[in-house]
């Protein structure tokens, strides 16, 4: 019969009281878990958002720099990508003869929709969301050009890239191999025309749902002989890009996008991302501040609860303390016994809290913490508003909360235990 065994027996002696304190303490601990889990999840979400934004901006910036000497030429006006006006292929050859132009590659870029041309557009609290229902994108390229390597994907995983003179063949992004359920050597059908897959390339952010073929094949697929949707114009001297773009716009009535346009767009994108990050950061700050208040309140309530129950237990067991002293127990050993009882109750409360917290954290977090305010974004940036991240309970959090509960049990019983250890044996034995 050791002290620990006696401690456990004393803890379970008053079953209902112990159960009540353990459950109450458990709920306090579950609240702590929920608050912590929610704050951590949102902090992580903010961090992920920042990292993702930085990555996107970097890859877009790299792409802009890489294509600094390219003018993208589009038909004048309208939603050109979704079936608007086209450019005559022959204009590409006229542009290529402009002084200072190295090459002009005609491209036919078309999206394949489940119901051709279907596109939905809706508005949410979080801003404007556009659903492009495209299944994939077909990019037909004039393969005779000397600069096709600047347009075609660079990382071929299987098979080969497209080359001059190719016809009736395609290369697929890695993602699209799943959609077509096809690989190198297989045949796929696009708008009823058969193509052989000769290569698979590594998907990137911009090309994850793209397949490439020759321009003439694309024109055949979409029945657009002699038409292109854009022309990539390669300028010999980067400093002359704006001048040549103006010339194309003036002489052919076409729209152009240059390095400067892209840079402006990038700045807009960056501003928008920054705004979202700031809103998310403000939300996380708000969570932390409210969470801290609730944390302190819960902790105080739990400590006071343990303190009162332990004080009551000490009072109730005054006579027992006197007996222990009379048979030779020291004040310190009595102090340790009561402290241990508090710690055991704290541990039980912590475990119950971990169980309740593990099950009810999302619900508790929903009740206890504010939701993010809707974010209004400028029309044109198709991004949803920020959302509260789902709280995730980690093993570290559970250990931390059990630790806090044990500490509370210990601290809450410290004063009652000290009081018990200081009792005069004569008075304690007389206590009824």
């Amino acid at each position: 019969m050791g002290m620990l065994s006696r401690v456990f027996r004393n803890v379970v002696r008053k079953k209902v009281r112990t159960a009540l304190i353990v459950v109450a303490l458990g709920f306090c601990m579950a609240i702590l878990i929920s608050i912590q889990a929610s704050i951590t999840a949102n902090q992580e979400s903010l961090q992920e958002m920042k990292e993702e934004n930085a990555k996107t901006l970097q890859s877009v910036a790299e792409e802009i720099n890489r294509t600094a000497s390219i003018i993208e030429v589009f038909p004048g006006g309208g939603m050109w990508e979704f079936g608007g006006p086209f450019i005559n292929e022959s204009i590409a050859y006229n542009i290529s003869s402009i002084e200072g132009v190295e090459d002009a590659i005609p491209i036919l870029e078309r999206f394949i929709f489940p119901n051709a041309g279907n596109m939905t557009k809706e508005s949410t609290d979080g801003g404007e969301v556009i659903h492009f229902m495209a299944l994939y994108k077909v990019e037909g390229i004039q393969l005779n050009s000397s600069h096709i390597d600047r347009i075609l994907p660079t990382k071929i995983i299987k098979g080969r890239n497209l080359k001059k003179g190719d016809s009736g063949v395609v290369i697929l992004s890695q993602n699209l191999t799943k959609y077509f359920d096809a690989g190198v050597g297989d045949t796929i059908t696009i708008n009823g025309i058969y193509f052989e897959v000769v290569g698979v390339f590594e998907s990137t952010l911009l090309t994850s749902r793209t397949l490439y073929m020759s321009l003439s094949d694309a024109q055949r697929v979409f029945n657009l002989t002699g038409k292109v949707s854009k022309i990539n114009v390669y300028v010999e001297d980067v400093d002359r890009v704006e001048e040549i773009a103006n010339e194309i716009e003036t002489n052919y009535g076409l729209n152009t996008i240059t390095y400067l346009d892209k840079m402006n767009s990038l700045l807009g994108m960056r501003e928008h991302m920054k705004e979202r990050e700031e809103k998310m950061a403000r939300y996380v700050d708000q969570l932390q501040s409210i969470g801290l208040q609730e944390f302190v309140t819960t902790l105080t309530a739990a400590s006071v609860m343990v303190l009162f129950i332990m004080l009551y237990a000490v009072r109730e067991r005054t006579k027992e303390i006197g007996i222990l002293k009379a048979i030779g127990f020291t004040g310190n050993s009595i102090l340790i016994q009561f402290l241990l009882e508090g710690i055991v109750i704290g541990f039980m409360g912590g475990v119950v809290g971990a169980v309740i917290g593990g099950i009810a954290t999302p619900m508790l977090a929903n009740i206890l913490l504010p939701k993010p305010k809707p974010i209004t974004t400028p029309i044109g940036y198709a991004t949803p508003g920020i959302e509260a991240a789902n709280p995730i309970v980690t093993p570290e959090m559970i250990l931390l909360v059990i630790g806090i509960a044990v500490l509370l049990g210990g601290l809450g019983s410290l004063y009652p235990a000290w009081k018990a250890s200081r009792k005069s044996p004569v008075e304690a034995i007389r206590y009824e």
Partner: protein
Amino acid sequence: MNEVVLKTVNLTKVYERGGKKIHALSDVNLQINRGDYVAIMGPSGSGKTTLLNILGCLDKPTSGSVIIDGTDVTKLDEKGLSEIRRNKIGFVFQAFNLIPILSAIENVELPMECTKIPKYERRKRARQLLNLVGLSGRAEHRPHELSAGEQQRVAIARALANKPSIILADEPTGNLDSKTGEHIMKLLGLLNYKIGTTIIVVTHDQKMASLTGRILFLEDGKLLKKEKKGTYLGRKG
């Protein structure tokens, strides 16, 4: 030659109640020899329990000293007093004062928990002591499952756990019927005879006191000079 195991010198205890001084004990000079079985008799309020509490280091005197086995316990700090209570004294209370959550054998083991006696040795000794008080079959029972007499026997076995020099019994028969009380007094006598432990019993019951070997009288906090011999002859008899 008789060896003195317990001695008090001018032991005085004064309480203050409502600004009034109450002399619970006045200059008590007492000497108990090793192996004695002594009763201290006196009417209610004569200071018997106060004297026993001071002898047992549960309370401190206002003045005077208590010497147990050559040590002046009035000069000891709380830790030293705990040691004396643990190693030199065994208590038997009127209300038995067993720990309700522990079985009989665990109650007997309890005082040994504060010593360096190994666990298996504690259990063995507790069993022997329960045998000695005739409760070998009730070792695993909790106090509420035992009769009053049995509970007092467990309390006696617990008092003997650390082989004390003295057993102090405060009205050990107060909560028992006269027949059971007599058995308890005889059991104490038997233990004194077998083990040689000094036993001091405080009682107001003359019949119970007469079962000891020596009877002292306390009145109004003063130890009377008269002494009586009891029926118990003990080892020396």
